[in-house]
């Protein structure tokens, strides 16, 4: 069984199981940020109904948090962006993921690896939700709007209060 992490969000605890075997780089990277408390107090800053909920990059004041160096994209590991899987967010460059991640709220096959090209790399899945699915649904359903320079930000803050490795 993979490493378990509990995301204590302001709407309830979401338990995730990481796939250490198929996504060793993303898993180690995620655990490093969990252990140093990076995710504590981060906002779900991008929530799109029927698509995904994204977090890990901004504090509640919508200030971007500093991160470590980007990691290699493991989207070619065979894991796919099914509903309730957890995957790394990134910029347009394939190997640019740092701390931000998202939970798929639908089967998002178009995010899967196709080829090792900027357009085809896809998004690396590294685990799945094993408990608290209803809290994922609750976050997905919140009202969102424009805040500062960002769209799709929940009108009322939804945050990860604390992320804990279940030893």
């Amino acid at each position, binding site marked *: 069984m993979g490493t378990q992490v509990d995301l204590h969000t302001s709407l309830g605890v979401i338990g995730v199981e990481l796939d250490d075997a198929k996504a060793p780089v993303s898993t180690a990277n995620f655990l490093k940020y969990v252990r140093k408390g990076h995710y504590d107090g981060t906002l779900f800053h991008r929530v799109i109904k029927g698509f995904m909920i994204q977090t890990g990059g901004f504090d509640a004041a919508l200030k971007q948090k*500093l991160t470590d160096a980007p990691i290699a994209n493991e989207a070619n590991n065979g894991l796919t962006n099914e509903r309730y899987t957890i995957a790394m*967010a990134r910029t*347009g460059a394939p190997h640019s993921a740092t701390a*931000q991640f998202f939970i798929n709220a639908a089967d998002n096959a178009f995010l899967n690896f196709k080829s090792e090209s*900027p357009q085809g790399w896809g998004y690396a899945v590294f685990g799945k939700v094993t408990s608290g699915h209803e809290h994922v649904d609750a976050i997905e359903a919140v009202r969102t709007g424009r805040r500062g320079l960002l769209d799709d930000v929940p009108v009322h803050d939804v945050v990860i209060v604390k992320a804990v490795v279940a030893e």
Partner: protein
Amino acid sequence: MTTGNSLPVTADSARPQIHEWNASDQWRVIEFMSDLHLSPLAPATSAAWAAHLQHTDADAVVILGDLFEVWVGDDARCDAFEARCLEVLARTSARCWVGFMAGNRDFLLGESALADAGVTLLPDPTVLCAFGQRVLLTHGDALCLADVEYQRFRAEVRSPAWRAQFLSRSLVERRQLAAAMRDASEQRQRARGRAAYGDIDSAAAAEWSRLARAPVLIHGHTHQPVSEPMTTALTRHVLSDWHHDDGSARGDTLRLSAAGIRRSIARATP
């Protein structure tokens, strides 16, 4: 309003020569960016910039200064990193119009290197006439008047005499001098804290806007991206810097079209 005692401005920044630039009526989108600070030490930022230019659908791309972290003279364009960046510009200018306005880091980027890359040099400030709108463009450092020490430095290094004297040195010497100048500036900024960049002077910006008859201002330099009213008669849009090497994925562009100005933010997504 006169440019008399009420404004803490130098004669130069109070009454600038405002260059007027008419956009082609064939264009539908003009894109702005600034403060990329390209350097061999920030490879992810250079890669993100090159990828952006390769895919942009804009009819014109305008770089409002500090494209390079440092530019010590056009003879540096044969060095590997600088040559690669100019090659990116050349490939872009083969597809769309590309303009460049000097920043405080790369004001020595001259017309010969730019011409080789098919890039047009825009004076600072320039008023752009496009889609029936007048938009004032500046890098922004000339308006940061509260930083008196910087303004003194700026006046010195922008003088033809300083330029000639600096360019007469060897390339190696110039690189060393530029590094020393940057270190001194960074030390000064650290000593002064986060407010070091300061902001542009709103009274001076309003005066520029009045002279240019432009109700909209686009600038960079301060690395504090925002779109906001500055005065009742002036709205400003501040570009972000670009940074992809600490994982923070910054790099806004502003896109001007007949529909107005829209900000496009580089950010992590699925």
